[in-house]
């Protein structure tokens, strides 16, 4: 008998984006199938998105493990796969024991039914037996503190009552492995403490808990170990204090500056592998005076030559401090033509952001690589961060800036 509760091995999940935009009309599917039949290969209009890439880890019986990472890192996708709601595209997971998951508070609650009726309905949806629910009914109601309202339709409940009842049911399902997604984010402080206490006692009973939370206090008090997901990859798997420390550190100064190496998956036809912001002496810098141009150097690689009707492009976005995009610039335009080579191999592109264009402040660059008019194959934001600083102050000259850019506009005093 092993003491492993969960064994996840190489789990990946792919989504095909834009297949076809409204996925639910027969006519478009017919067109897509016809295209596939003719080309024998998947139509190129499909963009792949890997929500999870090759995630592997084990969870021992009785362990409380938290899952952290930014929004969109793949945490919920992983929990859905372990709950059998969606299937992985690759990899496998072994689950030793009865699993109970709560990905949402009050799934299947019907507003017209009373609290009592919803306890039975929700319990059944979560996999409880009727006699099990009946046996624990009083306990559930007491935990939720809604004794007086148990026969009132839940549509008349306050949101707090609703959440308390929902959590109370889920907390009494008593699976061997409990999976929770962000359930601590709801309810008032007193109820959150109660939930934390319940999760702690579940763990003391020797049951396994895997939960997602953005509340680092809850994460460190409840779990022994943390898994950190970023962009679908498991980047850290260690004792909780270490992982949380490293995670918080990147949240604070996560911005890459100066130069950066980028990982490009093998199946991407073209990609940028390194990016640098260079100063006048061609050394990587991240703080530049307003009077000097910003030179962005991009190293890339063509893995697969474009088809005859295809053209690769590289673009840079410049974002202001509030994350709003100021402008985008492409490598190929009417005024200049720096096309990506068509044959496989390395290439290098440079882009000059003119001097005296940006007002002093903090800027973030974003990178887009793709096939013109078809799809994006690489998107990195933020790519690099730069600070533009005021270099000199000239007396009696207006040095304040209004707006976001200061292009060189020529002013002349004309004869009246």
């Amino acid at each position: 008998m092993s003491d492993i509760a969960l064994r996840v091995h190489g789990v990946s999940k792919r989504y095909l984006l834009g297949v076809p935009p409204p996925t639910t009309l027969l006519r478009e599917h017919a067109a897509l199938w016809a295209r596939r039949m003719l080309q024998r290969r998947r139509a190129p209009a499909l963009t792949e998105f890997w929500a999870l890439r090759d995630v592997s880890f084990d969870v021992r019986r009785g362990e409380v493990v938290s899952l952290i990472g930014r929004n969109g890192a793949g945490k919920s996708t992983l929990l859905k796969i372990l709950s059998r709601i969606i299937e992985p595209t690759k990899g496998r997971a072994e689950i030793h024991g009865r699993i109970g998951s709560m990905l949402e508070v009050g799934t299947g609650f019907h507003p017209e039914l009373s609290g009592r009726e919803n306890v039975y309905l929700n319990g059944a949806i979560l996999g409880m037996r009727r006699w099990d629910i009946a046996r624990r009914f009083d306990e559930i109601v007491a935990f939720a503190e809604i004794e007086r309202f148990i026969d009132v339709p839940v549509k008349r409940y306050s949101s707090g009552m609703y959440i308390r009842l929902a959590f109370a049911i889920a907390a009494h399902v008593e699976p061997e492995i409990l999976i929770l997604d962000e359930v601590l984010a709801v309810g008032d402080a007193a109820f959150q403490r109660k939930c934390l206490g319940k999760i702690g006692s579940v763990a003391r009973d020797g049951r396994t808990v895997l939960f997602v939370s953005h509340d680092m206090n809850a994460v460190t008090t409840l779990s022994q170990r943390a898994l950190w997901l970023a962009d679908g990859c498991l980047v850290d798997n260690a004792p909780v204090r270490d992982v949380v420390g490293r995670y918080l550190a990147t949240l604070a100064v996560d911005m890459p500056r100066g130069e950066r190496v980028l990982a490009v998956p093998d199946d991407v036809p073209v990609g940028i592998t390194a990016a640098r912001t260079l100063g006048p002496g061609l050394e990587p810098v991240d703080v530049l005076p307003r009077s000097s141009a910003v030179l962005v150097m991009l190293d890339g690689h063509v893995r697969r030559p474009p088809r005859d009707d295809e053209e690769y492009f590289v673009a840079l976005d410049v974002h202001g401090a509030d994350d709003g995009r100021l402008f985008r610039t492409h490598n190929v335009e009417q005024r200049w033509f720096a096309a990506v080579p068509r044959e496989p191999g390395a290439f290098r592109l440079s882009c000059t952001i003119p001097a005296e264009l940006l007002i002093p402040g903090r800027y973030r660059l974003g990178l887009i690589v793709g096939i013109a008019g078809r799809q994006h194959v690489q998107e990195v934001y933020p790519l690099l961060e730069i600070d533009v600083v005021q270099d000199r102050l000239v007396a009696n000259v207006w040095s304040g800036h209004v707006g976001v850019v200061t292009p060189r506009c020529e002013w002349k005093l004309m004869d009246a």
Partner: protein
Amino acid sequence: MTLPSIIQPTRGLARPDLHALWQFRELLYFLVWRDVKVRYKQTALGAAWALCQPLMQMVVLTLVFGTFARLPSDGYPYAAFVYAGLVPWTYLSTAVAAASTSVVAEQAILTKVWFPRLLLPLAAIVRPAVDFALSLAAAVVLLAWYGIHPAARLLELPAWLTLEAATAVGLGLWLSALHVRFRDVQHVIPLLLQVWLFASPVAYPVSLVPERWRWLYGLNPAAQVIEGMRGALLNKPNLIMADLPACVALVSVTLLAGALFFRSIERTFADVV
């Protein structure tokens, strides 16, 4: 200790997981129970609405086809004749429509909890059976008023109901699975039901169908079920009994293939819905 359950990509056809269905049998009960409860909450007439639909249709059809168009009714009072056909037809059409939309209707649960997805179309065909029972009881009363006493042949009804439920599930499995990907299905169902109503002996007797086309007519499971239930209620000879085995075979194939199809694509439901 329980055996490990394995999660991995499945390929090809998947067989229905009867063990999981049995484990979740109480959820089937609760889904039906919820729909029955919710259906008549905050209504003044409550369950009486279950009777209104077939009774109203009986009045309209009797007026239009019985009185104005003077359609034959095999010698029975037209109202009794048409009501005996409406009872099975109302169940079949409600069950098919409900089963077909059952998966998409529960998308909120589908994307958050795992349970055997087959329960959804199954629950959808069980729920209208409650209304069916009520309108069947009303039929017996109505027929007694016309002096028709069905007696022993009522025992045939469970067999016909089984065929009818199998038809509804079989179609429901196909349509509900397709509905997840193609919302076109919700537009097809009313059309299908309208054509099907006129292709079935609800408003007219089977004897009106030309004899050389009866074999084809008898393959229509709705025709079999309506003729069968009406025969049992009115104690009337069944004119398409000879085609029953072929029809049962057709329904069985639809049902089994539907179950395989449903199981094979249910793993993508939560991704697509």
